[in-house]
């Protein structure tokens, strides 16, 4: 018994059943890296700089959003004007443009709608065949 105790000290950490594994489990239970980052504590000046950068970024995002919304509103108004112009010009074509008859799926070669016009422009020579 006494010899075993003395021998344990000399050999160092015992690699017995469950020891390393329990140690590792306990370590990873108490150090959840990436899942709960340490809460940062900022001093006054650091916090102020963070606040300023946050405000500027929010302002930037707001300006982007407003310009995008304004552009969409302009496009919508142009579409509406065009439809009204068509109504004034040709009644039959206007009704055809608004009809929901024969609308099912999209043709396979339709151009996907984008924010900006395409590089190719309008293909006046397109035929169904």
């Amino acid at each position, binding site marked *: 018994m006494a010899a075993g105790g003395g021998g344990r000290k000399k050999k160092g950490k015992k690699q017995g059943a469950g020891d390393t594994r329990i140690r590792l489990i306990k370590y990873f239970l108490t150090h959840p890296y990436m899942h709960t980052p340490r809460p940062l504590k900022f001093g006054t000046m650091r916090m*102020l*700089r963070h*606040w*300023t*950068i946050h*405000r*500027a970024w929010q*302002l*930037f995002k707001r300006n982007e959003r407003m310009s995008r919304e304004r552009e969409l509103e302009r496009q919508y108004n142009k579409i509406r004007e065009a439809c009204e112009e068509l109504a004034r010009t040709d009644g039959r074509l206007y009704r055809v443009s608004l009809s929901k008859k024969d609308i099912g799926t999209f043709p396979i070669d339709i151009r996907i709608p984008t924010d900006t016009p395409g590089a190719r422009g309008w293909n006046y020579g397109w035929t169904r065949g």
Partner: protein
Amino acid sequence: MPFQTYQMALDYIKKDRAEKLAAIKEQQARIAEVVKQGGTNDRTLHSMNEHLDWLMVQADINNPRVKYNFDRGVVDMNKPVYRFLMDRKWREYRRPLLMQRLEQMHIFPDIVPHLDPIVDVPVRFKGYDVQPGTIVHSEVSENHPTLKVIPFQKKRMLCTVLVVDPDVPNVEKNGFDYRLHWLVSNIPITHTHTQAIGTGAKRSDTIVPWLPPHALKGEPYHRLGLLVFEQSGLIDPKKLGEIKRDGFNTRSFMAKQKMDIIGAYMFRTQWDSATKAIMQKHNLPGWDKMFVRTKD
């Protein structure tokens, strides 16, 4: 140069501020045009002015210097952005607390039909801040409190302060009466000069002097409502005539003098160790009476 992102942020905010200043000038010109042409809808002018106020706040609200000053309490009420920040801070905590006390204690509709405070009214008894709704000891409330009236808009006005006790017992009618404890009028208040009564306050007219709040022995607590009104003009104390304390009707007084209610506060009082002495000192009847619960 250190703090590169911070410097970039500052530049962006500066650019935005320049844009806002240009927008302010444009809006001011537009308002002047509209006013010059006359015959306008009040609503148009009101919304234009509101937009102008919004622009003036937005010009400075991203300024870190303004935030630093405000966090330290260094506030210049002449500037719209500080008025906005003070208003927002009041509405975050102190106003909801006040409204909770006023609603739970039924100050309205008992004394006035509606209450929508737009000014901050910090009240101090004997120099100490008292939270609305606390039961104030008789000795502490023997003398009138000092109070400020803090408006969050650029205005100069004359205010009236009124303290009413709605819980005066009336045994004959088996109900309660109102009693007026204090009435002070013609208090000049601006957004920079906010002390209504106390050190540094300007001259005002005490129409009805302070009566110490007292609740009789055996009674539960009395509620006391302190109301702040905005006067439409100067009130002449001589023209008011005799104002009776007992049975004072706040609603009719408000209507007759054409006053708008802008702020409120409340506290409570009950029979404690000093009430008897104070009632004897001020010759208030009832110090020798005691209310006992009757069993029918």
